[in-house]
């Protein structure tokens, strides 16, 4: 692994993807509002996409397949954001809050 051709090796991309996944999971655990958790979920999606492209570029015999998988992933992520935001707005209308701790009907 030479420094001058760092960008021609899969390792650094995979480490960045692992970092994005770890930050996303950290955010899911630490965030107390629904939108913050949604943003952390997007980071996890991005990490999966980076992994797909890196491995399809360096390891797979079919480099187009990974890029197409990421295109589909972006479509799924966009659909997820649309649904999640509409749920968040509906929740905000009912509870006047999107702090995840306050969204409980029952005691506890």
């Amino acid at each position: 692994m030479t420094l001058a051709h760092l960008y021609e090796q899969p390792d650094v991309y995979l480490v960045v993807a692992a970092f994005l996944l770890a930050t996303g999971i950290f955010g899911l655990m630490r965030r107390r509002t629904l939108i913050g958790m949604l943003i952390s979920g997007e980071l996890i999606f991005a990490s999966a996409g980076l992994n797909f492209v890196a491995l399809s570029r360096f390891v797979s015999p079919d480099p187009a397949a990974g890029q197409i998988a990421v295109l589909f992933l972006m479509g799924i992520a966009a659909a997820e954001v649309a649904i999640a935001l509409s749920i968040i707005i509906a929740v905000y209308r009912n509870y006047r809050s999107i702090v995840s701790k306050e969204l409980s009907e029952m005691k506890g």
Partner: protein
Amino acid sequence: MNLTPLLAVAAPSANPASNWITLGLFIMFVATTVAGALIAVNTVRIIRSVSGLALACVGLAGLFYFLHSPFLALMEILIYIGAVCVTIIFGVMLAEPDEPAPETHKRPYPVIAPLVAVVIAAGIFGGLAKLALGHKWEAPVAKINDGSVAAIGTSLLSTYSMAFELISLVLLVAILGALVIARGGRTKE
């Protein structure tokens, strides 16, 4: 349409400095991604968090460009920054999303809880990074296409045409579902 990466395939014989410029750009994109992800999960105000996500997506688009997929770099900027981040900002405007002030006296474990999250995240990162660095990634013997925009288009309309149609259906259902869910209770007030 010739979108082949100009930087990443710069000939080594061209200029000895060009390689280092390319490396500097690469490190800048990695730093942008990492900084954006850290901003996205660590700020209190949610609008800064969205900006962090947008920053991370700019860095990711650069990384996609270095991975010889300029089409995906364009799509990353169009879809993530142009659609996802803007939609989240609309959600921020419609709800009241700021993180509440931490109520220190009521929380049972004020120090342990963040520490546990950091340890779990660091464990995931360390484990995955060790796996990625420990494995010897070998290039394939032969490639059946070059991963260019033309190859993507050909596969998208032949091998993956069914999935392509299904994803458009998923998006349609998602839009309709979002309309139905967000509309409920509007007339009540």
